């Protein structure tokens, strides 16, 4: 008769201690040693950094650049920049799980956020590591880690959003230079960035995915004009960038000519994989703060907390966040095992997390009630922060691939449903 006993015996025979062999959520001793070291350093470093640097306002781009890069430099000096980057570029060469510990500890003490180093550290850097020439890597990676180079992204165009591959920004070869004409949009921090990761069309005759190249763009090159765009929450978060005969050396191309689409896809897998670990920790904290707020805010004779419907939704969101955090750990474990960037699981995470984040925003506005019509802190309520987050959350189901596009990806690539009948010219 069939039995499940062999599965127990087999393991016993293998001689591997039971608790090490199985699915495990516990950080390793090495991870915990790293945590202690980092925690000890942060305890001293964060207050010291905050004492010597004023937090700039959202509109002060130069100030934010200065602040964000200074913190990155501080991390680098202490050996905490690029936890999972190879040591040869100044990284720590540690495991993905240590990277996770890093995020946890940074969030725990409320250390400065990655800020303007976002594109360099999380998009361009990993792409260069995977696809660039040795010279390109040596030129840029250490400077990104040290906070000496700020990057921005030039992928989307006004006419090429969800259909990114239809981009038209053209790079015509002229000797050992490309001459770039066209425009890009959603380039965060374009005004103060040093470099941009730029997708251009190098072969207008080829099928749309086949004629694209990936360039390193020096943002100080003549012919670049920047028009700031105001985001829903009111601050300037991104720009439209216009290119008028902008000359980019051919040696700044990453990978082969016309192979840029494949390279960009590498970036997206990073973007979808771990990009919101920090945000997730922030949201987890926000859920706790919302509960505390709900217990304080009175509405008529009771508190918002006394409204079971609101309270239960806080519980639901917290429960789902716990689940998503476990899902991150699974994704990280898979990445660690396979030594590959996180895969399609990132789309699942993005769909679930962005929707959860928006539900949290709606709930926050409900708890705030009438006070939420103001965006400056009054009556002891952190309205500035909460309303800004609530408005900002509306971008989450759009930026970096709309939820509609993510559902297509999940359905077609993970579930194997037939591809959309899309016109691919």
């Amino acid at each position, binding site marked *: 008769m069939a039995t499940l006993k062999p599965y127990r015996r087999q393991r016993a025979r293998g001689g591997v201690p039971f608790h090490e062999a199985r699915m495990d959520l516990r950080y390793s001793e090495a991870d915990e040693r790293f945590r202690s070291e980092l925690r000890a350093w942060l305890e001293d470093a964060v207050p010291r950094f905050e004492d010597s640097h004023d937090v700039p306002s959202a509109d002060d781009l130069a100030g934010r650049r200065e602040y964000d890069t200074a913190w990155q430099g501080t991390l680098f000096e202490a050996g905490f920049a690029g936890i999972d980057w190879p040591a040869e570029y100044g990284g720590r060469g540690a495991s993905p799980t240590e990277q996770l510990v890093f995020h946890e500890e940074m969030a725990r003490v409320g250390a400065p956020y990655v800020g303007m180093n976002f594109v360099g550290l999380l998009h361009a850097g990993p792409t260069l590591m995977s696809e660039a020439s040795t010279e390109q890597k040596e030129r840029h990676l250490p400077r990104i880690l040290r906070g000496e180079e700020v990057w921005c992204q030039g992928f989307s165009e006004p006419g090429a959003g969800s259909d990114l591959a239809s981009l038209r920004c053209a790079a015509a070869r002229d000797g050992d230079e490309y001459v770039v004409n066209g425009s890009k949009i959603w380039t965060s921090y374009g005004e103060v960035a040093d470099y941009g990761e730029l997708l251009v069309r190098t072969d207008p005759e080829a099928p749309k995915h086949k004629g694209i190249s990936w360039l390193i763009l020096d943002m100080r090159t003549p012919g670049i004009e920047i028009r700031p765009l105001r985001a829903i929450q009111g601050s300037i978060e991104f720009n439209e960038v216009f290119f008028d005969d902008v000359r980019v050396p051919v040696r700044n191309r990453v990978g082969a000519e016309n192979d840029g689409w494949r390279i960009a896809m590498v970036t997206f897998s990073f973007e979808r994989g771990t990009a919101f670990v920090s945000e997730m920790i922030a949201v987890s904290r926000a859920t706790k703060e919302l509960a505390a707020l709900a217990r304080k805010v009175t509405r008529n004779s009771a508190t918002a907390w006394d409204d079971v419907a609101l309270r239960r939704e806080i519980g639901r969101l917290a429960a789902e966040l716990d689940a998503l955090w476990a899902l991150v750990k699974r994704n990280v474990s898979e990445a660690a095992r396979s030594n590959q960037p996180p895969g399609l699981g990132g789309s699942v995470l993005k769909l679930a997390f962005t929707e959860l984040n928006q539900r949290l925003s709606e709930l926050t506005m409900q708890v705030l009630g009438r006070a939420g019509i103001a965006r400056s802190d009054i009556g002891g309520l952190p309205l500035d922060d909460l309303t800004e987050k609530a408005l900002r959350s*509306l971008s989450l189901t759009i930026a970096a691939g709309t939820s*509609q596009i993510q559902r297509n990806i999940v359905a077609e690539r993970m579930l194997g449903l037939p591809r959309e009948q899309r016109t691919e010219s």
Partner: protein
Amino acid sequence: MDFVLNDEQAELQSAFRTFCDGRFDIDTIRRLDAEGSSVDPDLWGELAGMGVFGLRVAESEGGVGLSVAEAVLVFEEIGRAIVPGPVLWTHLAAGFVPGAVDGSAVVGGIDLGDCAGGPILLEHPDALDCVLVLDDTGVRLVDGEDLDSAPVAVPLDPLTPIGLVTHLPAGDELGGAEMARRLRREGAAFVAAMQLGIAESATDQAVSYAKEREQFGRPIGSFQAVKHICADMLVRVEVARAAVYAAGVTFDDPTLGNLERAVDAATVCATAAAHANTKANIQVHGGMGYTWEVPAHYYLKRAWVLETTFGTADQAADRVACDVGGDTST
């Protein structure tokens, strides 16, 4: 029974829509936003000239003499055009606050029930000649000069500046609990009408963008994902419209049924429509949707402000539940 607009009602609404299209087009909204002014004297005068404030005041007293059901049609258009300023409070005040009917007095208001337990916030504080104050016991009128408020640096809706009231004098008593109840009920009905207009405008914006914007070689509105978002927007609008118009008609003929419940149903449906549709409009617009390049954000923000004006949808749903369940304890 003939629950469709008659020709005159349709013309009334269409005439006011034409007025708003001309005077409160999106460039004007952007200009007012840039100038930081929510009440422009010329535009306010034009609203007064149209009769918006005295819409329900008898002709003999300088008003237009329309019914609530017709005023609802006008407020639907005010919502659709996100006309800024304390239009609703001044309209509510017309008839008993001198100068309101012809707009020469700009009247704001505070429903202390909305602020219960939180800071007392006043919309358009700098533009007001006087302020109506409602609470469970009655209605008071406070002179704008006598009330102290600190400006709130950033309001949620750029076109609804906010002041934090630091001193609220007692003012003059205008009426008791019954009058407060009546004003709240009327206010809630017109807020629902404005939310309906906002939900409609969001639908129109999303649908026209979905027809124009191409991706993957086709208009995005040909993709089912976008198409179905738009269809759901229209469903919410039509449901809300039925509830809002029914509330208006019930005001004019209270023997039709439970007026409070009709207003609550309008609040529940119109709030849901405005909230979901302004959000869906942003989603359909993609990246553009969360910038100031397209007006979607103004609509979302106005809808959020209106959600807590004269009571929330949750409060309305709770009351309807008690009515359905015959629960008189709350």
